[in-house]
Structures are given as C-alpha cells and as structure tokens.
C-alpha cells in the first residue's frame, strides 16, 4: 500500500549548516599542504597544439608543475574506461590526452602551485602555438548536414502513426512553424570544483561537485586504473547543479592526475568563464506541423527536431515523446536529427528534452487553438491524452484535468478575453497565457541502509546527492515516518561513494527511487526488530506477523491494540544490542512496466509588455502540479518555484552566444549571461493537486525537479502573444525581438 497523505512541511534539516557556512562544498576543503591547480583552456576551436611553452611559468618560485599532453602520466586507452554513467554514445573527451583541439576552451594544461594566485599568474605566462583548422560552430549553416545517430541516448524516434502528411494536408486548420532556442548553460551558484586529498598510502579521498559520488569514483577507477578501495568520493553538499554535475568534469580529472603525480593534495576550481567550457543544453531547431478538424480535434502532429551535438559524442535527449504523451492523435510522426559542431558535448540540463520539446509543442498548440478559434484551455482539454500514445500505455495516475481546473480558478482564467491585444494598463499590454507539461516519474533501483542505535537514534544512508533539492530532509522524513520516530532522531547520510549504491541524482527520480529504498530499509529494520521483540521473555508481540504491527511513537505495537507495545530502544536493550542494521536493494515493481508514469503541470501566466521599450514583465504565475504524494510541501514548493524561475530565464533571458569567428561562447560571465534576478519575479503561486498513485513506487511520490519548469517558458511566450498579437518563436524573447517584430 502506498502512503497517501502528504508529508509535513518541515524546514531543511541541513538549513542551519548552510546558512551558517558550516556546510562545506567541494572547493572549500583545506587539507595540509594543499596545492592549487589552475586550468589553461584553448583559444581555438579546432586544430592542434604545436607547442606549449611552460618555461616561464615553471621558473616562478612555488610553481610545482605544468601538466600538458606532453608530460601527462600514462592513461587508460579504451573509450569505455572514460565512459561515465551518463555518457552518451561516442568517444568521451580525454583531457590532456593528445595535441588535438576539439572545441574552444578545451582544457590543455594544468598549472599547479602553492597558492591560487600564483597558479593563476603562472597560467597567464604559458604560451601556446596552434595549427588552426577551420571550425564549424554555426548551427543553422550545418542543419543541412544533420544526421541520424547510430544510437539515441534517450528515446529513438518511432515509426509514424497513421498517415500524418495526408492528414495534415486534408485538415481544415493547419499550422506549420519553426521554434528555436539557443544553447544554454546551467550556471549553478557553486562552480565546479574538486579537492583531492592524497594520503601516504597512495589512496585518495576526493571532494567533488557531482550529482552521484559513485559516478566520479567509477570514472577515476577507469581512467587512472585505481582499485575501488583506493578512491573514495564525497559530495556532502552541492551548491546547485541542474544536470551539470551528472558527468564528472575535467577539473576532477586534472586535480586527481596532479595529486597522484605530485603525491600531494590538490584542488582545482573552475572560474565562471570556464563554466562555459563544458556541457550545455543543446541549441534546438524544431519544425512543428499540426492540424485540426473544424471542431478542434487534432488530425496530425508532425515534429521534426534538430539538436546540437559535438563531433565526438552523439548527445540526444527526449525532445520528441511529448506530443503523444500530452495529446493523442491518430496521425503523427516524430523525427530527430543531430547537428555535429566543433563544440563540447551537450549535457542534460534541467528537464533535458522536455524543456525544449514542450516549449515548441505548447507554443504550436496555442497557435493552432487560435486558428481553430478556441480558447487555448478548451482546445487542450478537447485533445487531452487519456493514455500515453507514445508508449501505448495507460497512465498510472493523471490529475492534469484537476491542475487545469484549480490553476484556472486561482488565476482567474475565465475572465480572459480570447482576443489578443485587448488588455492594457498604462504603457503595458497585458496578456494571459497557459501551457501544460509532463515529466517522467521513474523509479530506479537503489540501495539504502538503516541503522537503529540503542539510544533511539536512526541513521539511514544511500550514496545519492542533495543538490539543493532537499534530499537530506525528505529522506529523513520518510525514515522518521516509516519508523515512527521524530525527525530530530534521524540522520540521513549521502554523497559518499562508500555508502549503499544509488542512481545518479537526476531526472526527478531521487525522491521516488531513494525514497522507496529508504522506506523499504526502514521496514526491513522493523521486521528485524519484531523478530528480536518476539525473543524477549513475556513479549507482548509474540506470534504476531509484521503486517499486524505498526511503528509509532518510538514503539513497535499492535495496530488493533496499541497498548501491546515495546519501545524500539527496549527491544535492542533487552537483546543486549548496541544497534541493529538493515540493508535493502530496492527495485521498481514489474507492474510499473505496464504503465506510463508521469507528473503533470498546468501553468498560467500574466505578462506585461511595454512595446515601445521592448520589455516583458512576468507579473503573475500559477503553476498547478500533479506530482503524486508530496513528501514535504515546503521543500516541494521551493523546487517548483525554482522551476518557474528557470522557465522565466529560458523564455526571456538565457542565451549562450556563440561567436562564430572564434568558435567560442562569448558572453562568458554572469554579466553577459542573464538569469532572472529577484526584481524579475513577482507573484508566484504553486498548487499541488491531490494525486494518489499506488503504482509509481511504494511512497507514492513522483519527483518534482523538472515538472515545475517544463511548461513555464511556453506559457510565457503564449502570454506575450495574447498581450501583443505577435508570435515569438525564437527564445529568449528579448527587447530587440519585441522591437523588431512588426507582425500583427
């Protein structure tokens, strides 16, 4: 049975540590004798290094070494040694492997010195001669060379349904439009960093910024040929990641290499400009052709996607399932090609694929609703997916209709004139728009361990991560609730490769996967406690099966007669035990395979557009979420709010600008790359609709990391249309685009 009631709104258990500076991040560990590494990056996008002159740097007092491809230690040879748990098909990039330059800002040297400032200065003295080759970084120009990859990292395009081209041609209402968004970078507050603690016995302990300590451990073992016991990776605190910490990044490689070679502890922290030197959300170009009958029934859906990738890995993501997850249509085709550029491989970024696909889909649906002459909400309800057509499965639960109802009511949608350009206040045109979204709610295998000590303290652990999402808190809550303990009695440990195995912290799967493992480990511990309880003389629980007992108020007790009880601590005490442990390997149920399991959202947005100045203000947003059982409404709300802020960034501000001449992202700092600031955000409302789901996992929770974000950008863009009567199909919708769009 899944638990049904939402959890309690609790403060973060690690909140105090974070706000008082006691939470240490990867770049903050200070072992004795620590050396500092500064990375030198290439200034060309393609070619080879003819010579690196390091002499001047090496002459400085306090500079220990400058590592380059010429003096690096021997490294693993096979691709698979470099393939981490999130690697797309292809040949992973190998820092300092040879003299080839594959992308601009490629790491080509590591300067190691006694202080950060010295290392940075020394790095500025290193000179590089290149043989430059003509790079190609212009996505639009390369569209003509788009290719179908051998393997798709995410879902491969399926065979078409029905006859999409004919159905499109014959339909009464047709819409064909191209939607684009630029490359975007994750920009967590904490830049990527690794501190490698070298020990006399040659073993290393690594503090890394990573969304899964096990992934960094696996990578280091593969690349440097280390045994599992020789490398322990820790990431107790991660200052945001949004996917950028799914794959081990080059600072981990370089810091570890330097530590092993110099037999010293080494730290490497990337600078903000260097945060533009690795993975990013790929630029996409999507052509949508949608058709509907006179009464607004979808007749054809054709989605053609082009996404950016590097020359050495085929990165793809799930851009194409959404039309048939959110709607049903008898005639549909979905295609997806990649465009190879001389850039670093793209990387999962918050709602990878979903953010892109749902943006284009929901803007196109809005356009078609207007062609049909329907209110965009009615049009969506008319085409509401009763099943997941993409995988041909029923939904395990889907309260999206309720999201629409509650969201619309809170927002006041019924007062909206359908005609665009009809609301105005002062200089500002006002527009109301909506979009809906979905995200996968997968449960993945995960391990957890629960240990109850005789003093009543429970310690639960799993090698997952908390990237600001609230993992520490909700796992502690799940454990406390399962064991009938107070939250204060529970400690949850994560971010350590020596803990029980957990999947990468990503894809909104942690609450579901690790939460289930935590619950099962605690229940396993309960069973063991019952066995011990029954061994005590005069036990009130003799011959009682586990399903007839409950753990409440620190006791194991009979459900139908709570006076028959033993305190958990007594059970240990009377068995002369200091502690009792249970470990579980939690697996998703086979039943899950028969269902499509998604969280859903409906987003309502009010924008105010000042056409003369080209500015857009998001004055109001309501995001109604169906995310199963909410484990902690407070941390859950924070996650959704963060997703909404993220959506504002995607719709209006974020763009990594590629200078095609240099082949380099040129706006490479946070003055040039805009993300929303407080002043950009006004009323933000979050609604969690009730949603029971016995199938998704034993705790009934769906995960909220991405569903809060996916429908926000299109809702904003649709609201801009409603305000202005003009369509904007290229993100971000910035001042210049508002001013230059003369279409009415």
């Amino acid at each position, binding site marked *: 049975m899944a638990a049904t009631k939402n959890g309690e709104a609790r403060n973060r258990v690690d909140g105090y540590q974070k706000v008082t500076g006691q939470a240490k991040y990867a770049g903050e560990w200070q072992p004795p004798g620590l050396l500092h590494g500064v990375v030198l990056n290439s200034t060309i996008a393609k070619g080879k290094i003819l010579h690196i002159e390091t002499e001047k740097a090496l002459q400085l007092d306090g500079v220990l070494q400058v590592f380059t491809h010429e003096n690096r230690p021997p490294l693993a040879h096979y691709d698979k040694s470099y393939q981490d748990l999130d690697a797309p098909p292809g040949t992973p990039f190998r820092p300092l492997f040879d003299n080839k330059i594959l992308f601009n800002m490629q790491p080509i040297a590591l300067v190691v010195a006694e202080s950060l400032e010295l290392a940075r200065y020394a790095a500025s003295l290193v000179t590089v001669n290149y043989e430059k080759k003509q790079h190609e970084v212009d996505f639009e120009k390369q569209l003509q060379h788009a290719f179908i990859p051998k393997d798709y990292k995410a879902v491969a395009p399926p065979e078409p349904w029905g006859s999409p081209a004919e159905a499109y041609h014959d339909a009464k209402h047709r819409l064909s439009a191209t939607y684009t968004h630029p490359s975007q970078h994750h920009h967590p507050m904490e830049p990527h960093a690794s501190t490698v603690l070298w020990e006399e016995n040659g073993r290393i302990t690594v503090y890394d910024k990573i969304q899964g300590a096990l992934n960094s451990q696996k990578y280091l073992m593969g690349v440097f040929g280390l045994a599992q016991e020789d490398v322990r990776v820790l990431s107790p605190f991660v200052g945001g990641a949004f996917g950028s910490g799914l794959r081990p990044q080059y600072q981990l490689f370089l810091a570890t290499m330097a530590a092993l070679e110099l037999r010293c502890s080494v730290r490497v922290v990337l600078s903000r400009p260097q945060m533009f030197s690795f993975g990013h959300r790929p630029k996409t170009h999507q052509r949508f052709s949608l058709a509907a009958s006179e009464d607004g029934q979808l007749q054809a859906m054709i989605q053609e996607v082009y996404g950016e990738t590097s020359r050495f890995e085929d990165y793809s993501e799930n851009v194409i399932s959404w039309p048939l997850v959110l709607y049903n249509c008898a005639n549909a085709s979905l295609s997806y090609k990649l465009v190879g550029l001389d850039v670093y491989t793209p990387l999962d970024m918050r709602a990878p694929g979903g953010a892109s696909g749902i943006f284009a889909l929901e803007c196109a649906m809005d356009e078609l609703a207007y062609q049909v002459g329907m209110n965009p909400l009615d049009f969506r309800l008319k085409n509401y997916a009763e099943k997941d057509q993409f995988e041909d499965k029923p939904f395990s639960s889907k309260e999206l209709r309720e999201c629409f109802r509650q969201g619309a009511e809170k927002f006041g949608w019924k007062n909206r004139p359908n005609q665009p350009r009809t609301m105005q206040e002062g200089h500002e045109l006002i527009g109301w728009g909506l979009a809906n979204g979905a995200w996968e709610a997968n449960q993945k295998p995960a391990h957890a361990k629960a240990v109850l000590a005789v003093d009543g303290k429970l310690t639960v652990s799993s090698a997952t991560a908390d990237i600001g999402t609230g993992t520490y808190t909700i796992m502690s809550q799940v454990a406390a609730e399962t064991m009938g303990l107070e939250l204060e009695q529970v400690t949850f440990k994560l971010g350590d490769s020596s803990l029980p195995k957990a999947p990468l912290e990503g894809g909104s799967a942690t609450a579901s996967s690790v939460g289930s493992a935590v619950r099962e480990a605690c229940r396993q511990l309960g069973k063991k406690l019952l066995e011990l309880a029954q061994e005590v003389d005069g036990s009130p629980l003799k011959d009682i099966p586990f399903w007839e007992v409950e753990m409440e108020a620190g006791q194991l007790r009979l459900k139908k007669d709570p006076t028959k009880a033993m305190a958990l601590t007594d059970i240990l005490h009377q068995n002369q035990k200091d502690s009792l442990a249970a470990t579980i390997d939690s697996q998703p149920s086979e039943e899950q395979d028969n269902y499509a399991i998604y969280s859903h959202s409906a987003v309502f947005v009010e924008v105010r557009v000042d056409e*003369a100045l*080209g500015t857009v203000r998001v004055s109001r947003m309501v995001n109604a979420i169906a995310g199963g059982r909410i484990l902690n409404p407070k941390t859950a709300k924070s996650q959704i709010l963060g997703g909404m802020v993220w959506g504002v960034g995607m719709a209006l501000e974020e763009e990594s600008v590629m200078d095609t001449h240099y082949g380099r992202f040129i706006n*490479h700092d946070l003055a*040039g790359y805009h993300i929303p600031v407080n*002043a*950009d955000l006004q009323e933000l409302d979050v609604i969690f609709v009730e949603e029971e789901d016995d199938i998704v996992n034993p705790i009934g929770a769906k995960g909220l990391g991405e569903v809060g974000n996916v429908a926000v950008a299109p809702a904003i863009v649709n609201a801009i249309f409603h305000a202005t009567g003009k369509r904007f199909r290229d993100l971000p919708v910035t001042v*210049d685009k508002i001013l230059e769009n003369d279409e009415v």
Partner: protein
Amino acid sequence: MKPFSYQKVMGITEAVSDLKEKNQSYIIAGGTNLLDLMKVHVMQPQHLIDINGLKLHDISERDGGGLHLGALASNAQTAYHPLVEGRYPLLSQAILAGASAQLRNKATNGGNLLQRTRCSYFYDNSTSCNKREPESGCAALHGYNRDHAILGHSEHCIATHPSDMAVALAALEARVVATGPDGARSIPMADFHRLPSNNPQVDSNLEAEELITGIQLPPEGFAEHYAYLKVRDRASYSFALVSVAVGLRMEGNTILKARVALGGVAHKPWRVPGAEELLEGKEADRENFKVLSEAYLTGSEAFKHNKFKIKLAKQTLVRALMQASNLKL
C-alpha cells in the same frame, strides 16, 4: 593575478606623485571593476595606490548653490544622501539603476566614472580588442555586437561606457575635479569621457597622473522635472541597452530648458546640445519630443546585432521626456 606592489597613501600629493613615479601604477578605491579585470589579466598593474585613507568622502553644499560629491563617497551614500535625493533626484535614480546594493556600497563616485567597458571581447584575452591591446583589431565590429555603440564609434572600437551615474552627470552638466602634478582643475562632464577614435585604449581625458577628487554639481538639479529611464535585459543588475537622463525646467507646459543624455549608445554619455535647444520655448508634447529624439540619433549607425538600439533609443527618449514633463500616454 600578476604580482603587484601596493601602498596605502594618506595624502593627495603622495597619490599623485606615486602615479607619476611608479610604472604601471593605478589607483584603487572600491576596486569593484579593477579587481575583476586583474583576475582575468585584462589589467595588470605593477603598483596599486590605495586612496581609501584620503579625506574625499564628503558630500557638501558649494558656495553659489551647487553640491560637491567627494570622489570616495560611495555610490550608495551619494544616492541616498538627502541633498542628492532632494535636489538631484535624477542622479539618485541613475545611481540606483546601476549594479547591485552590494556593489553600490563598495563602489566610489570617482571609480564609477573610470569603470571600463563591459564589451565581452575586452574581457577575453583570446580575442582582438584595440582597447585592451592597441592595434590588435576590434572583434566586436564583426562579432557579437548587440550591446555596442550606435553613435560616435570608430572602426577601432564600438564599445560603450557602462556607467549609469555618468549619464545623469552629463545631463546635469556636472564637472569632474581632478588634481595632478600641476595642481587642480575641473573638467566638464561633456569633455571627461572621450570617443574611441583611433586610440580606444584611452577612455577619458583625465591625465595618467591625475587623481579625481570630487564631482561638482551646478545649482540647477531639475528636481521638479526629471527622469532616468533605463532599458535592459532584466529588471535589475544588468547594463543598459539604452538609458536616458532628462532634466527639464518648465513653466506650465512650456519647456524653458532641457538637458538630455543617452547611455548605452556610445563610448561616453551622449549629448547633443544643439538638439536640446529645439525644445526650448516649446510645449511639452509627444511631437516635439519626437523631433528631439530624431535629432539626437542623427548620424547613428548600427551593426549586425544592435539595429534595434536606434529605434529603442528614440522611443526611450520620448518616453523619458514624457515622464519628466508628467505627460500621460
């Protein structure tokens, strides 16, 4: 960063003589821009002269009705000073439109004027930039130039000056007071910053051996009719795409005097004194404002990514004039 020597000075004379005698020496006050540039090796001083110990923090009334702003008064102190808020609200508004609260607490008035452009290419040593490295070329000219100048640029540099405060000071016709080896002088704001011409590495007409000691505001502050309107890519904490500072002296609906400066469009705050006169004696109305906006943008020339700025500058100018004269839509 590159090693440098550092000395805290206690007198203006000492600061000026250090500037003269020590090679590659720079003044540091708030350091909010200089330190960033040193970290990325764009500026590599050999010697830093810390002037924070000098007594240049005062904001006081001048004989004849003007106001003196000490070079070391912070941007925040200046913006929130009752005399500035009351008599020069245009300046107050402009300062508060810039940077963040933290930066304004640290940044000084003198330093604000001397901040460098935020052109991406200036910040990136791997690209060409005549301002950073004379004769290396201007990568922005054919690169990503959305934020760049539309007025007064040259083939050598199309960067803009990033300050908001300076735009208001230009409209207010302030003067910058500086001391050099030959004593003190005051420089009109219009002549303080310069156009890039063929030596864009020089941002201003301040001599290398001169130290800014203060800013003088004339008596007229346009406290009745003013506007600072800044258009940017987000609501706060970003540089202007276009900004407009307007001060009007009015009688009824008639404009007696108009002072207008544009920011975000040139290597310096942009004024066209002749165009301002077009408004004198005229009614405050949209048509007259449009005439002025056209005159202000005469000779504007945009690049691949900043064509919108010409239209934006005109429209922002009209809007700012409407606001300053309290005209409704």
